[in-house]
């Protein structure tokens, strides 16, 4: 939806926003309790907080360069792909943010990502595979989704969330080495008993914290889908691009049921499918769920425009 002053407005998904805040609340609660436990055991953590904070700030400021380095993506100039620049410029203008840098990765795997600590320092990267497979309107929808991450400030949100998990991971390692070679602030004999207890509590906090951060990243994906759909006005194209990228359509077989029937193996449907567990550990929500939400969003947007 493009509003006045060339800015666009996103109608908020109240359910999604509630779930996001609730996850933050749980994360805060978890670490508040954890802090109290550490305090009760008299464990000094300030130096670890400083180290992890330093790492987090470095990562936050250098994220675009680090990702370019790790993915071997190359920032391109306008003359290399004028169409890509034209789409990104148009979307950025509509969102009232500066045009991000554009990078391309030489990979047949269709994918795209956005990074950067704020809109001014953002970067959008696409693979050569995605350029080949998607139509221009699908590509626009995918780029709008990536800009959605930039507009929603997801880098900042996830950097904060990851800080907690990295902090716990550091503590876990510290307690592990202390169990082997000596206690904290005292000798091994004195601290040996409780260090095992605190080590397992830290492991548990790390595990729960990781699940909460993963849930948060999945919510941010839904959020970027929504923002991107409003930005380009094409939730249907984003749905179709997701289906193409994820290979959902290519999973539908082309053979005739008559021919495969005799060869088909009869499976017992498990009471707890692997999918349910896999969902909890995934950084992205299932494509089918995203597509379903996007189809609903299309109807919602149609209703908004038909009601003026």
């Amino acid at each position, binding site marked *: 939806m493009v509003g006045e002053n060339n800015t666009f407005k996103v109608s908020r998904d109240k359910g999604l926003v509630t779930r996001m805040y609730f996850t933050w609340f749980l994360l805060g609660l978890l670490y508040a309790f954890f802090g109290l436990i550490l305090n009760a055991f008299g464990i000094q953590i300030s130096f670890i907080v400083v180290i992890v904070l330093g790492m987090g700030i470095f990562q936050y400021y250098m994220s675009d360069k680090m990702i370019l380095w790790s993915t071997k993506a190359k920032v391109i100039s306008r003359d290399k792909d004028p169409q890509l620049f034209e789409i990104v410029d148009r979307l950025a203008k509509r969102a009232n943010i500066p045009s991000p840098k554009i990078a391309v990765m030489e990979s047949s795997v269709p994918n795209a990502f956005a990074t950067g600590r704020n809109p001014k320092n953002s970067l959008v990267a696409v693979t050569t595979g995605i350029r080949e497979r998607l139509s221009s309107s699908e590509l626009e929808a995918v780029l709008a989704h990536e800009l959605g991450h930039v507009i929603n400030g997801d880098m900042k949100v996830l950097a904060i969330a990851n800080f907690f998990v990295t902090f716990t991971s550091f503590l876990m390692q510290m307690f592990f080495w202390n169990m082997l070679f000596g206690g904290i602030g005292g000798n091994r004999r004195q601290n040996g008993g409780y260090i095992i207890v605190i080590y397992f509590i830290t492991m548990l906090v790390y595990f729960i914290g990781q699940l909460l951060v993963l849930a948060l990243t999945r919510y941010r994906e839904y959020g970027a889908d929504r923002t991107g759909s409003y930005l380009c006005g094409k939730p249907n194209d984003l749905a179709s691009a997701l289906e193409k990228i994820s290979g959902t359509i290519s999973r539908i077989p082309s053979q005739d049921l008559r021919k495969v029937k005799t060869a088909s193996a009869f499976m017992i449907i498990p009471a707890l499918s692997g999918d*349910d567990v896999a969902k909890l550990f995934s950084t992205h929500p299932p494509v089918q769920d995203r597509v379903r939400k996007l189809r609903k969003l299309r109807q919602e947007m149609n209703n908004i425009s038909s009601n003026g």
Partner: protein
Amino acid sequence: MFFLRKKKSHWEAISSILQSRNYLEENSIRLSSRSGVLISPSDHSFFQDLTTNVDKIVKDGRTDSNTVIEVLKDDQETFWVLIKDEDFPELISTTYTVINAVSNIVKPDNIIGSVFKLDLSQSKLIDVYGKVENCYLIFNSDFLGYYPFVPSGEERLNSLELDIYDILSSKGLEVLSDFNKWYGISSIPF
């Protein structure tokens, strides 16, 4: 979240469409009054006079039935038991009766699939995909689930199938969520 799933019976799975019918109609997806059960033949004596045998099973003990049964053999040497009934619950019940009878008398493996026709002419999906000639729901008796099938010449409209799946899966219909098992059926005779 984790939860235990009780495996549904064959009847529960196939008849789930009765509960979903209203929702489908709210989305302007109509179920037609026809279905077809695709059966692979064998040496079993049941196939020697399939028409009479099926008719006998369907009409057994029923005097007021308006169900019309037709049996035909297609160009791939498989049999179609075509069922027509304006009473939709009766159509589902008869389709199940045929599947059940063939499974018990011959073998469950002889049932290839059951097909129901959908009418999308009033649906909003047409705005996106244009006119759709034929659209079907296939019921897989091995995995006890429905899935959409939209042939378009030699191809399939997979995007439309996924759109229909989204509608189907949101209201209690037993759907086959594993897309790898969405095999098509060529030359459906209705």
